[in-house]
């Protein structure tokens, strides 16, 4: 792969033309510099078109309808499942459960485990109770914290967590102590949404499996950027979310080893997840349908399928290289900004394309407000990672995040905006 400027493997100017929203301006004609893709990504025309085409030509309910539209809709939905499976390296598309977002995916696992625990029957790996431990990290997004807190509250299990070192990496020194015979589940982010840190998931999974614990990886921030192979990760569950990977809102994914989906009790009850329903009791469909209750986000799955096609065509290594290049460039530029404190790894090679920082003496809300006035969209706040912010002694930070449509000019606009911030609040 040849690396020239930000044009790594593809022409970013051409790519930008695929995203209608990038043509718009904000605040009286300013160019939109969208640096909030870790929050939600923009969508290429092909995704919009796939949804529009589905809605205006093939819309019907799936798996239920015995008519032409119903068959077309079912085929489109199941084709999206297949695409997603291939995209993350699963050879068995029944390992892909569609949810509304990754938050639901994580809750699905936590509730299924909770249900197995309450019923007290079935696979012992899925049962947690007093004395058992669930291990997470201080680096997690709230969506990978709260479901486990609620599970522990319901079952009497204990929540433990990895700390984070000053350099923004996971403190692995207590691995063997934290993940021990009492551990039933380890849930960890593949990439931190605040620090950008990429975690040694495989290493953690090996230890977890050694002690018989199950491993869930929150890949919401990694799947959009780098090639993620669920088998390589060594995890039992991997979640990700459509809207951060060029796909629509309303659709998320849980990948799980089929063998586990087979023994997990259902989560949501309703139409389509059943085998047979009597008033007295019901039996359930095989995975993935067992976990897909009610009418699914059909159009959204189709949109996600189109997003996966788009990313595949662009070439994931090229996207990764592009994002890395921008991150390195931004870190370089940041070094010249006085009073800027960067959170997370200093080297772009150790992190994904999100950079969170503090501007000395100016609150992130004020930083982002001034940037917004310049057309530069960043995120200010705790980014749903409050414990991690607390770990670094702040309540909030400003975060810029890069994706396949961003350019070095976008980074320059950010840096120029920061000068403006200091003029305003200096």
């Amino acid at each position, binding site marked *: 792969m040849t690396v020239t400027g930000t044009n790594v493997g593809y022409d970013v100017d051409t790519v930008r033309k695929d995203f209608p929203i990038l043509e718009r301006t904000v605040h009286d004609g300013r160019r939109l510099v969208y640096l909030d893709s870790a929050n939600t990504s923009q969508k290429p025309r092909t995704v919009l078109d796939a949804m529009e085409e589905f809605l205006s030509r093939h819309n019907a309910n799936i798996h239920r309808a015995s008519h032409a539209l119903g068959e077309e809709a079912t085929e489109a939905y199941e084709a999206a499942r297949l695409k997603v499976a291939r995209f993350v390296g699963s050879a068995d598309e029944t390992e892909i459960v569609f949810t509304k977002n990754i938050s639901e995916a994580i809750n699905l696992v936590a509730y299924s485990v909770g249900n197995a625990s309450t019923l007290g029957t079935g696979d012992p790996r899925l049962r947690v109770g007093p004395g058992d431990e669930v291990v997470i990290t201080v680096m997690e997004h709230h969506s990978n914290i709260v479901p486990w807190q609620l599970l522990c509250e319901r079952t009497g299990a204990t929540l433990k967590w990895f700390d984070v070192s000053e350099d923004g990496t996971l403190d692995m020194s207590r691995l063997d102590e934290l993940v021990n015979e009492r551990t039933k589940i380890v849930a960890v982010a593949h990439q931190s949404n605040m620090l950008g840190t990429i975690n040694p998931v495989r290493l953690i999974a090996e230890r977890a499996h050694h002690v018989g614990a199950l491993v869930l990886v929150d890949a919401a921030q990694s799947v959009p950027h780098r090639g993620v192979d669920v088998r390589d990760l060594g995890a039992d569950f991997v979640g990700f979310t459509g809207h951060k990977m060029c796909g629509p809102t309303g659709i998320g994914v849980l990948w799980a080893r089929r063998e586990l989906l087979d023994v997990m009790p259902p989560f949501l009850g309703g139409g389509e997840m059943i085998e*047979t329903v009597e008033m007295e009791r019901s039996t359930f469909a095989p995975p993935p349908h067992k976990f897909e209750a009610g009418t699914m986000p059909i159009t959204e799955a189709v949109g996600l399928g189109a997003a996966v096609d788009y990313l595949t065509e662009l070439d994931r290594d090229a996207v990764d290289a592009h994002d890395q290049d921008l991150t390195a460039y931004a870190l370089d530029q940041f070094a010249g900004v006085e009073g800027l404190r960067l959170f997370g790894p200093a080297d772009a090679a150790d992190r994904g394309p999100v950079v969170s920082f503090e501007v000395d003496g100016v609150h992130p809300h004020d930083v982002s407000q001034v940037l917004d006035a310049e057309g530069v969209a960043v995120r200010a706040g705790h980014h749903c990672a409050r414990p991690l912010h607390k770990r670094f002694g702040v309540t909030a930070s400003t975060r810029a995040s890069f994706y396949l449509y961003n350019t070095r000019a976008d980074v320059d606009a950010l840096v120029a905006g920061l000068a403006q911030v200091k003029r305003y609040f200096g």
Partner: protein
Amino acid sequence: MHLDSLYQEIILDHYRHPHNKGLREPYDAEVHHVNPTCGDEVTLRVRLDGDKVVDVSYDSLGCSISQASASVMTDLVVGKDVEEANEVHQAFLELMQSRGAGEPDEEVLEDAVAFAGVSRYPARIKCALLGWMAWKDAVARTMDNVSEATS
């Protein structure tokens, strides 16, 4: 009219005059299968003698495709070795997954070639497979019983 590609005469014949329908004794295993979408049901019994399929009988509620398919299936498996029967099952599965492009081997599938058109109607494939799934399950259980009895 393309309906005829789905509802071949052979299918309608088996539907109107199903073979081997009605539960019979003796049997080694009985299973009950349901199509979750439409509620169609089949109860199926298998009788083996060693590796040989001696009898398959069934009772069912369902559409023309599922009824006819069960009927054809019994014709195909009774009298064969389990392994041979499984090969036929495999060939039928492949036909169902062929999306209308399959070229079924009449030597192997006999009357079941008539189901080629079903593969173009995804919603009906499950109907055509209901009886076969029950068959496969019943044989597996029979084998389990046998291996438990002899171990």
